[in-house]
């Protein structure tokens, strides 16, 4: 019942938004997402103390990993829907969007959040696939919300490339199912994670190898890992800021969650070497690509998008190491990256609003002219670049340590080199945008306090979990053992 409620809460919020066409209906959506976050915390506490929960006649299941992912989704959903109220109000005031389209936007956002929750709470790989495919379907119109040429092109690319990827993932899923049927005979729950894990020892290695490779390629497309990343910079730069925040902050990692789960099965069936080789390859490719394209980036939203590709590469490399320490660090990184990146996308939405351009060259001396916005953007970048005290520093450190432990030191060194290049590139872009003097003394109004409050809190939380990991440590440890027993 609890799990069903978690999946349906955002939809209930969406239904109220659809029925009650009042100016403050957006807050209902925020409240429903906050309730998801609350229930996510409650579920996690129960799962850590009493073991996995199941619901909806065995269709849904929550273990520590699912509980953690619900918390991540809930957090980013609250941030994005909160600031989304402002984004939509401005769009309507500027005449770019009718009130009716605001309603459909909110309904789609709530449906988007519900599909992600279904993906992480799915008890079986088929439902997971259906949920991930559904995220593509519901987000396409959100990416194209502004209906400019660029937005339409981005949404077309997005749905075509992701559908191709997800078809590969289905092929992979069928092959895993084939292995499971050969081992256990036809049974209703052969596709359940628990049953797959229990039979993993007997799954046929040659078919499983092909299946897992297809799954990494397929779900990897949605994660934005190179070489299947080409939709990501376009979609993230064209979508409205709250959508970019949700996509970059959680959708990518929800797709990575699928890879993590299948990796657990594949590691038992094939030994860790196969998944390690595969993940290290795509991780290093992604890092190299992000580094080379960030150097010449001229658009700050695209800069953030390539930065996501970098972080997905880091997460994939951490997962390749595979020991419990590495998986815990990967999960902490998922949360830290989600917080920092969504705050940055939401802030960049505000910057674009007041400056009227997304070109790096078009924005300068932000710290002097607009201290609040400039400050948030700067601090967000500091968090994202992995500077202490923010949690990305600790998670990156832990991942590198784990990689050295399992003999992936060379890959860790390569990753650090890419990170240094990216650091230099991003700092030089940011310096251009933030530092400088201005001779105009006009007072520029900062964004309203109710918009800055959630953004600043997001950064504060990101800093706090970097210093005090204790509220999360038992959850992270339990979740890491789900993947790496």
């Amino acid at each position, binding site marked *: 019942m609890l799990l069903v409620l978690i999946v349906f809460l955002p939809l209930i919020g969406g239904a109220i938004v659809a029925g009650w066409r009042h100016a403050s209906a957006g807050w209902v959506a925020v409240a429903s997402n906050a309730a998801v976050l609350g229930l996510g915390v409650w579920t996690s506490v129960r799962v850590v103390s009493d073991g996995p929960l199941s619901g909806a006649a065995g269709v849904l299941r929550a273990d520590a990993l699912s509980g953690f992912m619900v918390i991540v989704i809930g957090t980013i959903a609250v941030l994005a829907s909160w600031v989304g109220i402002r984004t939509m109000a401005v769009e309507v005031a500027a005449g770019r969007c009718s009130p009716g389209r605001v309603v459909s936007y909110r309904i789609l956002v709530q449906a988007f959040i519900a599909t992600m929750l279904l993906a992480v709470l799915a008890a079986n790989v088929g439902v997971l696939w259906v949920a991930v495919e559904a995220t593509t379907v519901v987000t396409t119109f959100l990416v194209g919300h502004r209906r400019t040429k660029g937005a339409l092109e981005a949404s077309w690319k997005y749905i075509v490339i992701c559908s191709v990827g997800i078809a590969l993932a289905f092929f992979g899923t069928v092959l895993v*199912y084939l292995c499971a049927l050969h081992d256990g005979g036809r049974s209703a729950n052969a596709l359940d994670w628990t049953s797959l894990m229990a039979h993993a020892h007997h799954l046929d290695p040659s078919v499983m190898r092909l299946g897992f490779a297809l799954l990494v390629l397929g779900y990897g497309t949605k994660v934005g890992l190179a070489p299947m990343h080409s939709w990501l910079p376009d979609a993230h730069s064209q979508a409205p800021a709250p959508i970019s925040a949700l996509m970059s902050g959680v959708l990518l990692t929800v797709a990575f969650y699928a890879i993590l789960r299948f990796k657990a099965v594949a590691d038992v069936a094939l030994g860790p070497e196969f998944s390690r080789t595969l993940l290290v390859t795509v991780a290093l490719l992604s890092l190299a690509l992000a580094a080379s394209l960030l150097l010449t980036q001229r658009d700050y939203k695209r800069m953030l998008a390539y930065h996501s590709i970098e972080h997905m590469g880091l997460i994939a490399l951490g997962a390749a190491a595979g020991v419990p320490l590495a998986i815990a660090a990967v999960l902490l990184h998922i949360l830290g990256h989600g917080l920092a990146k969504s705050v940055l996308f939401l802030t960049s939405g505000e910057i674009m609003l007041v400056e009227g351009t997304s070109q790096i060259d078009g924005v300068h001396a932000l710290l002097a002219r607009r201290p609040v916005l400039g400050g948030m953007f700067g601090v967000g970048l500091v968090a994202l670049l992995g500077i202490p005290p923010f949690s990305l520093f600790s998670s990156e450190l832990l991942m590198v340590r784990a990689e050295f432990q399992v003999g992936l030191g060379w890959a860790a060194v390569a990753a650090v080199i890419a990170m240094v290049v990216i650091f230099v590139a991003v700092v030089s872009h940011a310096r251009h945008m933030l530092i400088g003097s201005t001779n105009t003394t006009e007072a520029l109004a900062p964004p309203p306090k109710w918009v800055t409050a959630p953004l600043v809190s997001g950064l504060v939380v990101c800093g706090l979990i970097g210093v005090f990991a204790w509220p999360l440590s038992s959850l992270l440890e339990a979740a890491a053992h789900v993947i790496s027993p």
Partner: protein
Amino acid sequence: MSGSFASTLTLASGTVLVCAVAVLWVSSMRSVVRIVAVQGIALGLVAMDLGIHAHDAGLIATAVVELAVKGVVIPVFLGRAGSGSALDREGSPLVNVPASLVASAGLILLAFAAARGVATFVGTTAGALVPVGVATMLVGYFVLVARRRPLFQMVGLLLVDNGVALVAFLCTAGVPFLIELGISLDVLLGVVVLMVLAQRLRSEFGTLSLDELKELHD
């Protein structure tokens, strides 16, 4: 009895692949819609044949859903989107028809080489046909990259989808019915979204050629 089971299965699976190749041959949207409908029906028959042979009620229900969604609903949608516009002809594809057919022959050989392992592993009459499904997928990918009109690209996606569905039927007699329903719903909604987008692209860019899409780059 089992002889007719095997020959029906082979015939229907073969039809799915022939339809995929035929998409490369024709240039008018109206013919493409007919081909897609035939392919959807052939796919439904594969499921039906397997379901009847195995006395599997879930699989027969799946077959009915497939026939309805892929044989009727999607072709009707496609027909509406593509009707009455000369713009929807694939006038100058990136790869011309003879070259496309040679390429698809190559892809089919590749599929047979690549999927042989899986086919042996499955080990049934149906399993031996798995390479046909993989070949359909690959031809679908080829349509996707070699054709420039959005509606043709959409058909490419459908071919990929039908190819994977065929592989699923042949390998594992499909997935459980509940999941199959979810998949069909996703595919249907995906087609609707793609069609609305294609319409918006047409009104924004005038023609429906994807060559115009060059706004976004680094």
